[in-house]
Every structure is written in structure tokens, then in C-alpha cells.
């Protein structure tokens, strides 16, 4: 009997200790609001693997500025991939504690919004950060489902552009890069000779395919989601896939090995100097381009904005030069330091810090005045224009699934691509699957 009692006591003691430990782990928020003396603001931000030292220096500089301004300390926490960030958001949302400010990628913003865990921006909040007018208008396109329900403050832009080899185009007597998809295909055909290819495409990339398909579709007047209806079997979308596959199968302007390439491999191939165009890249590729045989021989251009099979955009088509790409800043609604958080958001979206960040890691400012100062550089002017002509992907919590479904059509078609053709029946069947997945996700959207 005594033994049993002892066991029970020890068990109880152990349980109490563990529970106490758990409670201690759950705590850790800072107290109070208002002025910043002695407070800590936690900021979650994507790690920059390309320029780690510059990134660190920028963090330090921003922390110092914020400390001087408010007396509060900024603690940066970094994540390596979008999935890491999503996991962090999930756990913080469940626990009701975590970072005060999140830098969230544009395509992930609708997902973050759908959790309902972030502060909606009313006039008061916008005023605190210096008003909506200080941003490039297009960058506000994915801050929320509508004007009244915005959560994301634009921070940086990473618009997509096309890059071409100036020497190859010049030698062929082409004075201007292609402005329509048909023209691009035609240029690419003309420029494919011997060991030289007209176009470099990363067919095996986990994200690129849907960006092409979305772009071509929306230019033809189909934004893929209409209210609560998915429109993936629309002829415009089918035409987009056929064009994208056609470069490899019928036009033969792409290296057959491209069926195994990711985006960075496609860039590396372009940088060897034997390819005329690389159709989807961003300003951060400049380093790779300068490091290869293309040094001094490349130029950015806007992606075509006229859909395949047309010479001008249809009336309901959108001039989408790029998906709206970059990062938004979101303030957690569980944060006890919301005032401080908005002060921080203001600081890093003001012209000075935006330009400082651009110089450190090469991400374009979302601040309109800051972006304007960069236009003197010809290459950047093109990228800046792409930022202005960026169009938001549909704002729905189902977007992650739709993106996945669009990419999956290409993933499953790769064996057929390598055999030389994706038949109509195969494409229709895969599009029907994608449509089903997209629609069921939209049906669940709340």
C-alpha cells in the first residue's frame, strides 16, 4: 500500500513539474503597449542566402534606427523557405503568441489572410505607416481581398521579367525583343540553329509553370478564378499549356534537356551564352548573368503581354507583365505591441530604409519615391516597369491548391513531353483533374 502511495506521489510530482515547464514555454510575451522603452519587437523575415552578410548589416542598421526612434529593440527571426514560414504562422496562430510582424510572400498572403490572425488595416493603421499613397499602386494589389479588408503592407517587389542575349538578337537583325508570345515563339524559331537555342525554360521547376499559364490566361481575359468558380478548362488556359509545351514539342526551340531543369538551371543554361531568350527570371539573376559567358551581353525586357495566338490583347485581357511578386508585412493580431509594430512597418517602408535594403540585397522598393530614384539604370527601369505592371493572382485561400494543380499538369506531362508530344486527350484529362482539385478547394473556401 505504501509503495502504491509513493508511486502516486512521484507521478503527481512529475506531472506538475512538466506542466509547469509547459506553461513557462507558452509564456514569453512582452507586457503592455505604448512607448517602446525596454520592449522587444519580434520580426519574422525570409533569410537571404544570396547576400547573407549584407542582410545582417541591414538588420543591424534597422535595429539601431528603431532603437533610437522608439527605445525598443528589434529581434529578427529568419526562415529559410516559404514552408518554414507557413509552419511558423500555423504554430503561432494556434498558440496565440509568436512574432509581432511577419514578412509574407505575395502568393502566401491570401493563405495568411484566411487564418484571420492578422490586423486588418483601417485608415488609422494606414495613417500610422504614412498612407497608402507612398506605395507603388500595383503593389497594393494583393494586400487583401478588397479595399476594406487589407492586411498586407507592401514591402519589396520581385517582379518577373524576360532576359535576352543582345548579341544573338543583333546578329539576327532583331532590333526589339518580342512583345507578344507569338512573336517570342517566332524569334525563338529563327534563333534556333546548330547548338544555339531560342529559348530557355525550366519545365521541372516547382513554381515556374503556373506563372506562365496564369500570365497567358489572364492576358486572354481568364484570371482562372471567377468568384467561387475555377476556370482551368477554359480554352484560354488550354492554349497557354499548348504554347508552353509547344516550344519543346512542335516549335523545338528549347533544349530537350529542359524537361529536367529548374528555374536556376534554365538561367545557368542561358548564362552559357548559347540561348537567345530566357522567359521567366527576376532582377536577382543579374549576378548569375554577369558571372557567365553572357557578361555585358544581356538585357531585361518585359514579358510579352499579348496572349498566344493573338496580335493584340482582347478587350477583357489584362496587361499583366508579371505576377505581383514580393513580400508584404503583416502585423499579428495577438501582438501586444501593435503600435510599435506599425512604427516598425513605417520605418522599413520609408524611402531611406527601402533604398538601403535595395542596396544590401537587390530587392526593389515598394515605396514609389524610392523606386523612382532607381530609374536612371536602364536594366532596373525595365524591372521597375514590370513592378508597376504586375497583376495580383486571385485573392483566395484556395490559391495554394490551384497553383499546385496548375503545376501538377506539367509535372505529369513531362514523360509525354520527352516523347515529343502531349496529346489533346491527355491534356484535357489532366486539366479536368486540375479543375476538379481547384474547384473543390474553392468550395471549401470560407
Amino acid at each position, binding site marked *: 500500500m505504501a509503495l502504491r502511495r509513493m*508511486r502516486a506521489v512521484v507521478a503527481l510530482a*512529475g506531472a506538475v513539474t512538466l506542466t509547469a515547464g509547459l506553461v513557462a514555454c507558452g509564456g514569453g510575451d512582452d507586457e503592455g503597449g505604448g512607448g517602446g522603452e525596454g520592449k522587444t519587437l519580434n520580426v519574422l523575415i525570409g533569410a537571404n542566402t544570396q547576400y547573407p552578410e549584407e542582410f545582417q548589416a541591414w538588420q543591424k542598421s534597422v535595429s539601431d534606427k528603431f532603437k533610437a526612434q522608439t527605445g525598443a529593440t528589434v529581434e529578427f527571426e529568419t526562415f529559410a523557405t516559404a514552408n518554414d514560414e*507557413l509552419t511558423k504562422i500555423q504554430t503561432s496562430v494556434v498558440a496565440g503568441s509568436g512574432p509581432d510582424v511577419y514578412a509574407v510572400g505575395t502568393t502566401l498572403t491570401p493563405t495568411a489572410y484566411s*487564418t484571420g490572425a492578422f490586423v486588418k488595416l483601417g485608415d488609422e493603421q494606414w495613417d500610422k505607416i504614412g498612407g497608402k499613397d507612398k506605395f507603388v499602386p500595383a503593389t497594393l494589389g494583393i494586400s487583401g481581398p478588397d479595399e476594406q479588408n487589407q492586411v498586407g503592407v507592401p514591402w519589396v517587389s520581385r517582379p518577373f521579367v524576360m532576359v535576352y542575349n543582345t548579341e544573338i538578337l543583333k546578329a539576327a537583325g532583331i532590333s526589339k525583343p518580342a512583345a507578344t508570345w507569338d512573336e517570342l515563339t517566332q524569334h525563338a524559331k529563327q534563333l534556333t540553329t546548330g547548338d544555339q537555342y531560342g529559348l530557355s525554360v525550366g519545365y521541372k521547376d516547382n513554381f515556374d509553370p503556373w506563372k506562365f499559364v496564369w500570365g497567358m490566361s489572364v492576358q486572354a481575359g481568364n484570371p482562372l478564378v471567377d468568384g467561387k468558380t475555377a476556370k482551368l478548362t477554359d480554352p484560354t488556359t488550354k492554349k497557354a499549356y499548348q504554347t508552353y509545351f509547344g516550344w519543346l514539342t512542335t516549335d523545338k526551340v528549347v533544349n530537350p534537356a529542359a524537361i*529536367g531543369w529548374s528555374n536556376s538551371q534554365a538561367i545557368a543554361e542561358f548564362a552559357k551564352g548559347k540561348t537567345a531568350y530566357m522567359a521567366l527570371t527576376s532582377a536577382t539573376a543579374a549576378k548569375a548573368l554577369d558571372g557567365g559567358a553572357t557578361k555585358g551581353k544581356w538585357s531585361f525586357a518585359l514579358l510579352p503581354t499579348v496572349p498566344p495566338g493573338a496580335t493584340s490583347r482582347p478587350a477583357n485581357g489584362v496587361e499583366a507583365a508579371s505576377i505581383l511578386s514580393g513580400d508584404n508585412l503583416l502585423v499579428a493580431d495577438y501582438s501586444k505591441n501593435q503600435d510599435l509594430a506599425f512604427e516598425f512597418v513605417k520605418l522599413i517602408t520609408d524611402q531611406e530604409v527601402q533604398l538601403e535594403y535595395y542596396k544590401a540585397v537587390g530587392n526593389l522598393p515598394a515605396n514609389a519615391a524610392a523606386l523612382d530614384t532607381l530609374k536612371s539604370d536602364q536594366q532596373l527601369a525595365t524591372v521597375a516597369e514590370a513592378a508597376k505592371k504586375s497583376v495580383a493572382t486571385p485573392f483566395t*485561400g484556395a490559391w495554394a491548391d490551384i497553383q499546385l494543380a496548375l503545376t*501538377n499538369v506539367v509535372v505529369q506531362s513531362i514523360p509525354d513531353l520527352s516523347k515529343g508530344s502531349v496529346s489533346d486527350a491527355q491534356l484535357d484529362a489532366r486539366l479536368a483533374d486540375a479543375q476538379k482539385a481547384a474547384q473543390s478547394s474553392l468550395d471549401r473556401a470560407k
Partner: protein
Amino acid sequence: MTDDGTTTTLAERGEDTAAAPGHRERRRRGVTEQQRPLWMLIPGGLLMTLIIIIPLLLAVYISLIDLDQYTLRRWLEAPFIGLDNFVEAFQSGLPNSIWISVSFAVLSTAATVPFGIAAAVATQNAYRGRSLVRAVFLIPYVLPSFVVATVWRTMLQPDGIVNNLLAKANVDGGLWLSGPKSYWTLILVEIWAAWPFIYLMALAGLQSVDGEVHEASAIDGANWWPKLTHVILPYLRGPVLLACLLATLNHINNFTLPFVLFGAPAPDDVNVMPMIVYVTSFQSLRFGLSAAMAIVSLLIIAIPLFVYLRALRLDVHEEGGRK
């Protein structure tokens, strides 16, 4: 009869030997039970509860509710939908994934066993450079899965080193990382990375064979082949069976290899269980559905585990008796 289930054996023994109740009581209290420090199980037990049992129960609960990004914030209030997630799991790609996972795991295990045993036999007797050979054999095992997958992915590109070599022999390598062949690629890379585990276990088994056994078979005039098949291999049966079980479970649970080799979304031919659970959870954000899939996986893994563990326990007793 007893105050808790764990003392059944003792109590039964007590009943057999002791006639008088008073005597029996003294024996039970007197020696064995009090000396068993059961309380020492408490820290381990609490940790097990905390990091295995509670999360497992949570997973079971999550599999019964409609938990996704919309309900995550108030997850305790997420609607209870019974077995709907399981129904949906079976209507979606899960049965196909189960088939791929199980066949992949069994084939991988079956293929690694001969390599492992052969390597163990080859390094059993001492010779110059044996330790070097043993170290080299372990290289695939100590390399992180991520590294293995990245290197193989690079080699197996459509214009990669493997296809270039094959082209020199006038063979068209084709696609390794997409389409039907990707399934065999997965098995091939898994074999490359996993055979040293069988080797290690077989080596351990070989070293437990007494010198007398070797002497006895030498006296009986057994040649190497009969000696290997009739004397040595029976000794290896226990360790190698255990290795097979553990290896199969490892293959079924391997996420890094397919994820790094093929990316997500994966080609349909290699959409193994961990991949489908991952994509459902972290790309589609359907935590309820993916929890249901995970539980189905767990049950599937538990069946062979249970059967084998029972069989294995008998084995151990037998060997224990022999000594």
C-alpha cells in the same frame, strides 16, 4: 488475484509453489516485487506520454475534424465530421500511394539483403585493408539523405552524367526523374543508401557465431558453401529478419529522398505516403485530411510490425534457452 497486471507471472509462480496463503503473501511482499524499482519508469513514461501518446491522440482527434487554414485559429471549435476525412482519403490518391509505398519498401528491402549479407561475409575474416573496406561500406549509410538525393538528382538529369555515359554505350537513358521509370529510380537510390544497414546487422550476427561452430564444421569437413548455407546463415536469421523489418519501416517512412529527388508535386509514379501527407498538410493546408492519411499509414505500418515483433520475441527466447 494481483494488485496490478504486471505481477501476473510472479503471482502465478507464487501460487504454484506456496500452499499456505500466509506464506504466499510473505514471499510476494518479501523479495521480488519490492525490489523492482518500477517508479524509475516514471520519467520515461511521462516523456512517452508527452511526446508520443498525447500527440498521437491529438492526431486521431484532428483526423476527425475539418481542420484547415480557415479553422486553424479556433481549432478546438473546428467542426467534427466523423470519418469523412478517412472516406475522402480513400477516394483521393491514398490507396495508390499505399501501393507505391509498400511495394517500394518491400522491393528495396528484398534487394538490399543479398548485398548486405555478402558484404558482411566478405569482411568477416581478417585481411589487409579490411578496416578500410568496412569504412568504405559505411559511406552511403553515414551520408545525410539530403546529400544522397541531391547528388543522384544531379547525376540523373536528362543531360546528366548517367545519360551521357549511357549515350556513349549507345543506350538512350531517357527520363529518370519523371514518369514510370522514376519509381525504379527511387528504389535504386534507396538500395544504394540503405544496404549498409543490413550489412551492419548481418556483421553483428556473424560476430556472435562461436569459434567452436567454425571448428566443428571444419572437423565435419564442410566446404564453404554448405557451411555458409547450413551453419552460418541460420545464425543470421534473427538479426537479418530484424534488420529487414526495421529497413522496411524506414523505407516506408522515407520522406527526404523522394522529396529532394522529385520535388513537390511529385510525379504520380512516386507519390509515396509521406509525400501525399506532406503535400496535403503543408501545401493544401488540409490538416484534418492529412492526419487521417497519416493514421492510415500508421496502421499499415503497425500490422507487419506487430506480427514480426511477436515472431521475434519467440526467437529471442529460443536463443536465450540455447545458451
